[in-house]
C-alpha cells in the first residue's frame, strides 16, 4: 500500500484519516412526567425476553404491592427479541397498554 509518508527530522510521519464515523443526530426526547406518588396508580411491567426479567419484575411487583397496597400492576410481554416494540406487529397493543398505565418499569436483566 502507498502510505504517503513524510520524512521529517523526527523521522517518518504520517497524516492519517479518522476511522470514526459521522452520525446523524438522533432527535432527543425528554422522559414523561412522573406521578407524585404511586398510591392508587397502575404500574406497567414491561417484560423483555430475559430470564431474569420475569424474576426481577415479579420481585418488584410483590414488594410494591406490599408497600403500596392501593397500587396495581399491568404486565406487557414484548413481541420480538431485541426489537423495539414500536417496530413490531405488537405496536398498536403496546401503544394502548402504555396509555393505560401511569408509569413503566423494565428490567434489563441481562
Amino acid at each position, binding site marked *: 500500500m502507498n502510505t504517503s*509518508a513524510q520524512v521529517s527530522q523526527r523521522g517518518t510521519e*504520517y497524516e*492519517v*484519516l479518522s*476511522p*470514526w464515523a459521522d452520525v446523524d443526530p438522533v432527535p432527543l426526547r425528554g422522559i414523561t412526567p*412522573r406521578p*407524585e406518588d*404511586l398510591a392508587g396508580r397502575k404500574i406497567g411491567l414491561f417484560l423483555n425476553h430475559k430470564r431474569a426479567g420475569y424474576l426481577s419484575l415479579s420481585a418488584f411487583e410483590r414488594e410494591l404491592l406490599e408497600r403500596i397496597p392501593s397500587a396495581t400492576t399491568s404486565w406487557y410481554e414484548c413481541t420480538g427479541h431485541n426489537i423495539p416494540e414500536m417496530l413490531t406487529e405488537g405496536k398498536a397493543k403496546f401503544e394502548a397498554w402504555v396509555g393505560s398505565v401511569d408509569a413503566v418499569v423494565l428490567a434489563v436483566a441481562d
Partner: protein
Amino acid sequence: MTDGRSAASNKGMPLVRIVAETIPCECSLKEDVDAGIHLAMGQIIEALTKPLSAEEQSPKRKGKEKPSRIVFKGQLEELNRFFYKRGWGDGLPVLPPTEAAVREMLAGTDLEPAHVVGEIVPRHGKATVEKIAVNAVMAGALPTHMPILIACVEAVTDPLVDLGTFGTSTGSWAPFWIINGPVRHEVHVNCGSGAMSPGDIANAAIGRAMGLIIKNIGGGRKAVEDMGVFGNPGKYSSVIGENEEDSPWEPLHVEQGLAKGDSAVTLFFPNSYSQLWQYGSDDMGILSTLIYNLLPGRGGLSCLLLTPPQAKTLAKKGWTKQMIQKYVFEFGRIPAYRHRFFYGVAQAHGHVGTVPPNGMDPMAIVPSPDHIRILVTGGPGAFVALVCGAGLPGRQFVTKKLRLPSNWAKLVAKYKNLVPVYEKY
C-alpha cells in the same frame, strides 16, 4: 448500566432513569434477584416519582457527531498509540490510513467515497465508502478486498442478521464470513487446508477490517455496548471460502439465490467453532458425527463444515445438502432434559411451545432444517467442524452479491502475485 444508558441515548432518550444494578445478571438465582430488588426498591420508587429536572424534560446534545477527517499526524508508533487510546483498534498495530493509502484502497470500488453503504448499530455510524476504506487500510486489506468489504457491510447492516443483538450480546457472537464465487481465486481466499488459521491476507485482513468497521463505525465499545461475557477470538477474523471446485453440490451462494458466476459473501453470527473426528468414513459415520455433536446449549443457525472427500462420500450415496440439513434436524435430537429450553428459558428466548412435557421425550437441537447450512471447505482429513449460533426467531444466513469495479481485471492483475511462497527446507 453503561449498556442501558448507551442504548437509551442511541434511541434519543439519554436521560431515561436507570437504577444501577444491585442484582448480578441474567444468571442470578431467584433469591439473589429478590434480595437485589429489595435493596433497589427505594431507588426504583424514587425514579418513578421524583419530579423531572429541566434537562430530563428537554435533554441537550453532548459531543459532536462529525469528527475531523484528518485526525492525527505523527510517527507510526505515535499514531498507533493515539488510535489505541481512543479505542480505534483491536489491540494489534494498524497501518496508517493516509490520504494516499485510502485513495489506493478506493481503487477497489466505483462507488463515490461519500456514498453511504449503510448505518451500523449501535451508534448508527455512517459506513461511507471512505470510512470503509480507512478501516480497510488499518487492517492491512488490499484494494481488491474492497468489493468484499462493501458487501460485508451490506450484510452486517441487514436486519435479518441482527447486529444490534449479536454485536452487543453477552453471548460473544462473532461474525462468520463465507466467500463464494470467482472472487475467491482472484483475491486468494483460502478454501483449503488451514482456511481458518492465520497466514492468508484475504482471510485475515477482510475479517480484521470488518472487526474494525463494526467497532469504529458502529461504535460498539467493549464492556460498554459489546457486553460479551468471555469475548471471542473469532472477532479478529473468521473468514472462509467454499471449495466449490471440489464440491459435488451447488455452492452456498447458489442455495441462497444467486447465480453460480456471481461472487458473494454470506454472514451469520455464531459463538462457537468445534472440530470433531468423524465417527466413520462412510456416509453414516460422517452424519453421526454431525448429529451427535450439535450443541444443545446453542441450538440455532449452524454451519456444518465438511471436507471435499467427505462431501464426495456423501454425494456418492445420494446425499444432497438439503437432505443432510433435513437429516441433521430430524436426527439431531436429545432427551428434552438435555436441552437448555427444558430449564425454563424457552419462553424467555421466544420458543414457546417447543419443549415436550416429558424430560425423556426427544427434542430437536436445531429449530428447523433451514437453520442449517452445509459448507464444503478445508483440507483433507478426518474432521468435521460445527459452527454454531443462536436460534432467535427471524434471524437468517444473509448473502450479498459483490459489485466489482470497472477496473477489476487490472486490479486483480496488480495483486495476483501477492501470495506466500515458502522457502524449501
